[in-house]
């Protein structure tokens, strides 16, 4: 599928989709969206890029092995979930900042948990896609 239109579009689609995935991630919690969908969308951005330009090019963009995102995301989610434990609350209790942060909105442990999920989903999906397309 190395047509010039697709190739050119993919270069613009990659940052747009990534940005949109972050928007979806931040929109979650009270509205449809969240880490899982956002993560899938971000990995779709890379998948489209790899279809148009070949896996090698995409790997060059990502720089590090995407599998590394899995422990990072898990660690973030685990930390966000167990943070209340250090304050004597139960596991997974949502702790929120008093004032909403501009642009992002209210920030709490749930956001960090979702970000962890976001990273894990990107890590898993990209690892699978890269591994499968290596054999092709």
């Amino acid at each position, binding site marked *: 599928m190395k047509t010039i239109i697709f190739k050119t579009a993919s270069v613009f689609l990659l940052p747009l989709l990534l940005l949109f995935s972050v928007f979806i991630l931040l929109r979650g919690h009270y509205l449809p969206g969240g880490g899982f969908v956002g993560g899938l969308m971000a990995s779709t951005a890379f998948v489209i890029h790899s279809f148009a330009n070949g896996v090698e090019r995409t790997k060059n963009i990502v720089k590090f092995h995407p599998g590394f995102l*899995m422990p990072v995301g898990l*660690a973030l989610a685990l930390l966000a979930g167990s943070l*209340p*434990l250090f304050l*004597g*609350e*139960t*596991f*997974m209790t949502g702790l929120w900042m008093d004032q909403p942060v501009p642009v992002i909105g209210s920030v709490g442990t749930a956001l960090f948990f979702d970000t962890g999920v976001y990273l894990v989903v990107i890590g898993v999906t990209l690892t699978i896609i890269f591994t499968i397309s290596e054999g092709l």
Partner: protein
Amino acid sequence: MSNPYIVLPVLFQLFVAVILMFAWNRKNLQKLISVVGSLIALLISLALLIKVNQEGIQTMQAGGWIAPFGITFVADTLSALLVVLTATSGLAVSVFSVGSVRNARIKFGYFPIFHLLIMGLSGAFLTGDIFNLYVWFEIIIISSFVLITIGGEKAQLEGAIKYVAMNLLASVVFLTAIAILYGLTGSLNMADLSLQVANVSNRGLVNVTAILFLVGFGIKSAVFPLYFWLPASYHTPPPAISAIFGGLLTKVGVYAMLRVFTLIFIPDDFLTTVITVMALLTILSGGFGALMQNNIRKVFSYLIICHIGFMLAGLGIYSTVAIAGAVFYLVHDIVVKTNLFLVSGVIFKFRGTYSMRLLGGFYKEQPLMSLFMAIPLFSLIGIPPLSGFWGKLLLIEGAMDQSNILMIVFILLGSFLTLFIIAKLWAEVFWKDAQELPKKKYIRYFDELKPLKKQAMLASVVFLSLISLGIGFGAEWVMQLALRIAENLMDPSPYIQAVLGS
């Protein structure tokens, strides 16, 4: 009593798994983290057991959502005890893995997945929410799918297909049962369900759901008509993995049955008869199956089935004494079955085969080690004062109270079959003269291993043997614990009160 820290045994395993993932390519560091992590996990779970023992049932509402709306974690004595046993087996298998698991498997994430499996097991024992129980079962089976296929040998994949197929089927049945139960009562909290199910007027549907749960958990714990996947798959992965499978995976099914059939569905005569018949046939089929086998790991696989029958029998008799017997047997069986698969792994490392006909002369070559190996073997038969005896004693006492002669006959028959099988195994593997076996190239024999690896393998067997001995000689303490657990299971009102408040 509310206590936010009872979830620590679960979280800590996840923590260890995450740390291990960061050390993905460093196998020696992974081994160290895994062993140290398992040791700390054991201490945490022991602390939980002591706490529960002193202060009664501990609960935790995840996220601060009050029961029955949120997910509840409950640590009663049974849960805490099983978490301790899980951590104990986990520690032994982790140490054994240091010696026995190949680098190729470690490179594909053996240790992180192993800790995720232990996390799933601890979570399943601690949760007080039936849907959450399903989620933990999923975590357990997904991790076990990875562990059973990791390495990708042909025999492994063949066993894995049967294992995966049957366990997915069990999950579907289990999930269907949960859906029906939710439709009937509108609740998923087990303590709340206990109150709600009693008030449902459509008794027919309640009984159907109970049978669905029995089938779902029955497949997982390998009871009579549903056990075929177990002997077809448990002998295929490396010994460390089959040890954790043999020791713990089927026991989660037994735990779930004990919980569901004492808390949510109080069995009527029909259900106890069904469970009793299943138990008797499980004992019989497991025993006779083991008799036919030559591969020692297959023998142990069938013996798992046979002894699942004993625990189910306790549930079938349904009296405090009998359930205490089942709990005692559960405690004994987790330690012994884990140990037996480790023993088979050690024997394999020495001889390069699992075939009873080819093995021999082990006692002459390794007299001290053979003695330690004799402990789990003879505990399994139930020679007093070893640990298997006391559980059976309670079971027979329970059956005697109800003058259930058939049950007593089958329990004795099961013990006799086990005795015969173990005697045969002992004579073949340990006493018979050794014969020259051709050296196989792809196996690293025990003599070729580094001293640390040798010690790790032997130490884990010795550790579990000593615990078996401890359970046998400290039977009075364990028996009191089992009786208290059984009383709590038979009268769930403290459990319900602890979860739902007044």
